[in-house]
């Protein structure tokens, strides 16, 4: 048995089996959630490459799996990332069960995760681009439920992700073609630009992000939330891994400056657009852009605290997006429109979902006592120390997003003239209350949670040791 079989082949195989059993949605979602939870626990407790004794039997989980002459390698350094990814998936699949997601959600969700972990494990790096594209293709049935017509948001998602792949492959060819010292120095900056363009298209970086609000508006928020939670996080980690492996990129201060300024631009533009949004599901898209902006801003600091804040920011990001997606799904499943003209009485019909939505959005905008506050404060302090003249622009972007959230709050608290019936189910309330509890717990006890998640940075050891 090897680690890639356990964390790539098994979820992929189970995903295919669940696709066959897709009509039994409870079974498919239950198995997907159970398997993800088991794989997260195994990633937490099972060391890779060491002999373990269970009773009289010895088990060794090998690091490598060879396929057509290429290797898939998962080491102990990747285990924290596996824990985060599979634990997140388990939560999303349980939520999918309660929110009655369509029959492709669980099978294709598992296959997407298997492809993303495969992208992370494959050596050399250039094959990762192909596996990310496979993950994108597998997420199409997840985003477009059977029986619904495809919308422009999903089409643009596919176009932009597919356009990104060639850039990564080309850059991978330059940086992976032997000793970097022997490559023409004039080629390296061009290759870095190509690499940057590829990641910009994948991550939906300014100005390539207009498909994100379209996607969140036109597709089911739960499916969109699942894809927009896991895909950008995996791509960000892949990017860190790649930069960590290439000494020339690691040492380039210009690269990190560009990443930082791009992050800043994303925060500003997302904030300004969010301030004028009249549709909550589009605001969800801008929340994703804002989160990616902050992630890039932290990475661009190019210091150990900056990378640690980036890693710590993953938990509030994943939690916030989950609560927003769940709340919006509750509205959508009950036929509740989310534009500002149709929000009167929504608080009476969906009190828990409305509170969850507002709290999660406030958390993303960095409100004190909520999960996002400690990491926002830290990243802003670090950024202000490094570039005091630019911090005002980041504040402006954050303020814009906050104004957008306050406008949502002002509209959702408008009460209806007559008594409204509550439309949330108990399952939906429980999952939303659980999310809200963690939003507060992360905010009150940040050290407890964030110290555990920063081990995720082990995937890029060279990047950290150089700082």
């Amino acid at each position, binding site marked *: 048995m090897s680690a890639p079989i356990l964390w790539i082949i098994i979820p992929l195989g189970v995903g295919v089996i669940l696709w066959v059993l897709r009509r039994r949605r409870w079974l498919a979602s239950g198995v997907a959630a159970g398997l993800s939870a088991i794989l997260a626990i195994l990633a937490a407790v099972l060391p890779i490459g060491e002999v373990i004794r269970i009773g009289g039997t010895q088990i060794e989980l090998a690091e490598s799996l060879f396929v057509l002459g290429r290797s898939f390698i998962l080491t102990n350094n990747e285990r924290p990332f596996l824990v985060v990814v599979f634990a997140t998936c388990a939560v999303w699949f349980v939520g999918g069960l309660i929110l009655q997601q369509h029959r492709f959600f669980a099978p294709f969700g598992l296959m997407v995760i298997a492809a993303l972990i495969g992208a992370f494990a494959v050596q050399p790096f250039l094959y990762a681009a192909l596996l990310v*594209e496979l993950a994108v293709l597998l997420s199409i049935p997840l985003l477009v*439920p059977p029986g619904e017509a*495809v919308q422009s948001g999903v089409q643009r998602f596919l176009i932009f992700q*597919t356009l990104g792949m060639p850039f990564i492959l080309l850059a991978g060819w330059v940086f992976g073609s032997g000793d970097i010292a022997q490559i023409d120095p004039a080629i390296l900056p061009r290759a870095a630009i190509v690499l940057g363009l590829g990641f910009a298209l994948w991550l939906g970086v300014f100005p390539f992000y207009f498909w994100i609000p379209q996607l969140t508006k036109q597709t089911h928020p739960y499916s969109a939330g699942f894809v927009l939670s896991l895909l950008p996080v995996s791509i960000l980690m892949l990017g860190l891994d790649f930069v960590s492996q290439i000494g020339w990129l690691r040492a380039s201060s210009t690269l990190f400056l560009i990443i930082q300024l791009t992050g800043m631009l994303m925060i500003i533009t997302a904030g300004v657009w969010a301030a004028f949004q009249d549709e909550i599901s589009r605001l969800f898209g801008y929340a994703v852009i804002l989160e990616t902006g902050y992630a890039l801003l932290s990475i661009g600091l190019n210091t150990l605290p900056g990378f640690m804040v980036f890693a710590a920011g993953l938990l509030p990001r994943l939690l916030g997006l989950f609560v927003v997606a769940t709340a919006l799904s509750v509205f959508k499943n009950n036929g509740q429109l989310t534009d500002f003209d149709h929000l009167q009485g929504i608080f009476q019909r969906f009190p828990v979902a409305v509170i969850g939505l507002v709290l999660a959005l406030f958390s993303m905008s960095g409100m004190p006592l909520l999960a996002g506050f400690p990491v926002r404060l830290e990243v802003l302090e670090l950024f202000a120390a490094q570039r005091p003249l630019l911090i005002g622009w980041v504040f402006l972007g954050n303020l814009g997003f906050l104004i957008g959230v306050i406008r949502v709050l002002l509209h959702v608290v408008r009460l209806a003239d007559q008594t409204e019936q509550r439309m949330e189910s108990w399952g939906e309330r429980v999952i939303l209350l659980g999310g809200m509890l963690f939003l507060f717990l992360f905010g009150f006890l940040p050290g407890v949670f964030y110290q555990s998640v920063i081990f995720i940075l082990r995937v890029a050891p060279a990047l950290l040791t150089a700082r």
Partner: protein
Amino acid sequence: MNLQTIPVLLLIVSGFLLLLFLGWRYTLLGLALQYIGVFWLLVQILPVGLAAVKLIVGWMAGAILASSQVSLGEELPVTDLSGRIFRGLVLIFGVIVAFSILPAAEGWIPVEGSVLVGGLILLISGLLQLGLTGNPFRLSAGLLTFLAGFEMIYAGLVSSVLVVGLLGLINLGLGLAGSYFILSSTLEESS
């Protein structure tokens, strides 16, 4: 005229077919010609077997798309004469751009000239198709064209069996995703 000029001309003709005539039959014909051109050019730099993989996979992806469109039973919207003239002029401009940037591209990407220019023409043609339509069928054809252009250039740089296999899988996946785009509204609803 050099023998390698013929497949490049074939790629230009396929570009016109894909961009000017919007019916599914012309698109299928355009994709078929396009992959013959790709195969012809790639035979110079790849073993015949690997080049044939790209031809067969491309034809299969085109066939999947066309059969889905036929299954849908809806005619694709057509464009008028002025629209065709505009599209034709845009593609002519695109081909000129491809030949103009060829010397600069050759300085960076060490690939045989005819393969590089063929790849650039397909990249530009694919981008034009993507920019000029919102229809799932034509959009998928545009993505396949763009990817075929990139594959040609990339085959000159990396000739790994696994890369060819995975790119083939992605081509088929794009065909299936396009098919799903076309037919998703007709599938039985999930709830």
